[in-house]
């Protein structure tokens, strides 16, 4: 028995080694690496991002004349004589070390010509540094830390608006509420998770509050909570004690849901709660909270209410929803976009030569009708210039676009009604 166990373990290891060794089969396939947190604490989101990239793959490789996005009408990449695109998925488990080694493995062993990923900014950082070293283009779909595009990397690009842009967007929205609806919002607080995502968002609030002081805003609370939080009662007590008019939340789906339940339980009624790109945008938020989800707001790249206005988003969602069981959301469509833009750039370059792909990425304005801005264009730091976000608010259990005015699907409700009267 003992020997057989040992033999099993050893042979397992050897088989693994062999598997790794034999790659690079000559097929007319363009491989793009996609690194996401497919297990661990962020797996719920990571798996959805994987579905979205699979949808992109399907649209690129199949014939979808009804969907108005690049590469849908043809099968494969027309300028590479119809070569198919294959996304090679890797799991970084939320660990930057693994993100780095997976990026190396995908480039070296799987011979991917480009990379997308990694959701968490902390994983995107080392993975994109690897891409930089090997000279391979990297597009981050949904990683929002502004620091990512401040590193002076040549091969790195990002679709999502960063938290810097989001924070300004939030203040502008509050100003809009004050001016047009007399919301009377003054005391602003930020509640954030203690990791790169949350801490960086909070730093941006520190930065922008200086600019918006003249509009009567003050930063009344900064509440940081641990990543391994089990219950948020204490945090909710702090929020309550701070008597905030508006709360900026940088939270993931598990914690934001706990917070909403806590706000309800302890009768915390700010006028507005604005969420950074994170847990709030996940439709599970609506499913899990039901009525209690109403009146919460956040920036989002897409909203199901916009499907009526944006035919193409609806069609993409028709492919996505059967896989994921929920409507496509902001981070998901951003990673969908990163996949499609990358394939589009490779097609446009007419080759997988990284320098030519990069040239296209840096110069072209990509057609992206699934975003309200309709296009994607990277500036010289790699940041998408066209902010893809609208402000959405949950009204009657639906994410309604409420601002900017031109995309509005519903009137915003400028102040939370008391919990009791709901």
């Amino acid at each position: 028995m003992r020997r057989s166990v040992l033999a099993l373990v050893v042979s397992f290891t050897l088989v693994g080694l062999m598997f790794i060794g034999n790659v690079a089969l000559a097929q007319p396939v363009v491989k793009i690496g996609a690194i996401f947190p497919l297990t661990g604490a962020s797996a719920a989101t990571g798996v959805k991002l994987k579905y979205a990239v699979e949808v992109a793959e399907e649209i690129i490789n199949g014939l979808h004349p009804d969907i108005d996005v690049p590469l849908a009408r043809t099968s494969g990449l027309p300028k590479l004589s119809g070569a198919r695109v294959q996304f090679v998925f890797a799991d970084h488990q939320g660990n930057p070390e693994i993100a780095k080694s997976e990026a190396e493995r995908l480039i070296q062993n799987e011979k991917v010509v480009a990379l997308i990923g990694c959701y968490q900014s902390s994983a995107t950082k080392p993975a994109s540094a690897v891409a930089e070293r090997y000279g391979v283009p990297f597009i981050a779909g949904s990683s929002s830390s502004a620091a990512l595009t401040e590193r002076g990397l040549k091969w790195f690009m990002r679709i999502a608006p960063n938290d810097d842009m989001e924070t300004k967007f939030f203040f502008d929205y509050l100003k809009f509420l004050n001016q047009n609806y007399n919301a009377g919002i003054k005391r602003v607080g930020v509640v954030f998770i203690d990791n790169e995502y949350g801490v960086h968002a909070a730093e941006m609030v520190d930065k922008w509050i200086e600019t918006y002081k003249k509009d009567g805003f003050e930063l009344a609370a900064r509440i940081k909570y641990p990543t391994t939080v089990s219950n948020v009662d204490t945090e909710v007590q702090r929020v309550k004690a701070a008597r905030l008019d508006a709360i900026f939340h940088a939270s993931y789906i598990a914690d934001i849901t706990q917070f909403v339940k806590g706000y309800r339980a302890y009768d915390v009624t700010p006028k507005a709660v604005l969420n950074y790109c994170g847990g709030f945008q996940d439709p599970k938020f609506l499913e899990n909270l039901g009525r209690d989800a109403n009146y919460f707001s956040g920036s989002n790249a897409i909203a199901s209410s916009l499907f009526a206005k944006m035919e193409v988003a609806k069609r993409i969602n028709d492919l996505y929803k059967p896989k994921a069981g929920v409507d496509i959301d902001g981070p998901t469509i951003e990673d969908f976009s990163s996949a499609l833009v990358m394939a589009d750039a490779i097609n446009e370059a007419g080759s997988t030569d990284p320098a030519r792909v990069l040239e296209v990425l840096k110069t072209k304005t990509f057609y992206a009708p699934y975003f309200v801005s309709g296009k994607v264009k990277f500036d010289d730091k790699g940041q998408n210039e066209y902010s893809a976000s609208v402000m959405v608010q949950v009204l009657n259990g639906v994410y309604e676009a409420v601002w900017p005015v031109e995309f509005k699907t519903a009137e915003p409700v400028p102040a939370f009604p008391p919990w009791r009267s709901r």
Partner: protein
Amino acid sequence: MNQRSRHEWRSLAIVIGLLAVLPLLTKNVNVHHVIVMFFIYASLGEAWNMITGLAGQTSFGHASFFGIGAYAAAVAFYRFGASPWIGMVIGALAAAAVGAIVSYPMFRLRGHYFAVATLAVSEIVFQLFVSWRWVEGATGISVPVAREGLWTLQFHSSKLPYCYLALAGFVAAAAAFHWLANSRIGFYLRAIKDSEEAAMAIGINPAKYKLLAMVSSASLTAIFGSIYTQYILYIDPFMVFSMHVSIKIVLLTVLGGLGSVWGPVFGAAVLIPLSEYTRVLFGGTGRGIDLILFGVLIVMVACFQPQGIVGILRSRGRSGKGGQTRDAKAAA
């Protein structure tokens, strides 16, 4: 005993010779990555083995020393532009100091009470680093890219230098453990492990020797933290102070065999490639299959070979009749 020790030195030398050739057999960077991680974790296992395998004080908190070393190298370079070698020395000293300050009062605690205390210390250190602005808190530090070389300990064109750096570290760690285990101190530590009262009765001061073991273990662990930083070039508190790091060190040493210089080597040789390749093969499915398989294998080894892998080899060597002994040698 002396002869056994010499015999062990010889087999160690042979194995290290073989390991030195290993990275040259392939150009595959991913295999090189696995080799680097193998050396680092095998060495961490040797360090942990000092305090737990020899002195019998179970530590669930070695991530704190690992993290201190990792941060020392990163901060030295990032803040002061100093060579990671300097950071490494500072990290080792700092870890030794933390180990001493924290453990000394805790040595009164026996068994699991001590183990939980190390866990608590490690969580506190983690929290301090997350909130410490000067070391960039939760955001982590990206080590600035510098010219390749031994002074900066950065190598970009190939992973081979890292393989040999980690191998050199491993040789030092294994030698340190071997020396400690076979020295007078090693005997004292084992006596303390068996019974503190008995050890005291024959005139050994348990606190003194436990402290010595803890300090050496902590500083050695920190050194590999520094190497890890230079290898990954990015660290944040969640990577290096995570309980997963502590547990991984514990697991691989127990898997290989506690208290033996070979334990961490075999443990890491199985555990590191296994976790890497199950993930590579099945991780992309997004359904956790790789970790299920990994878990099943761990349970099987634990159930059928509770002495660890070293136990398998020993038991066969001892019952050794002809073929079996040869097997054991071949496997070693």
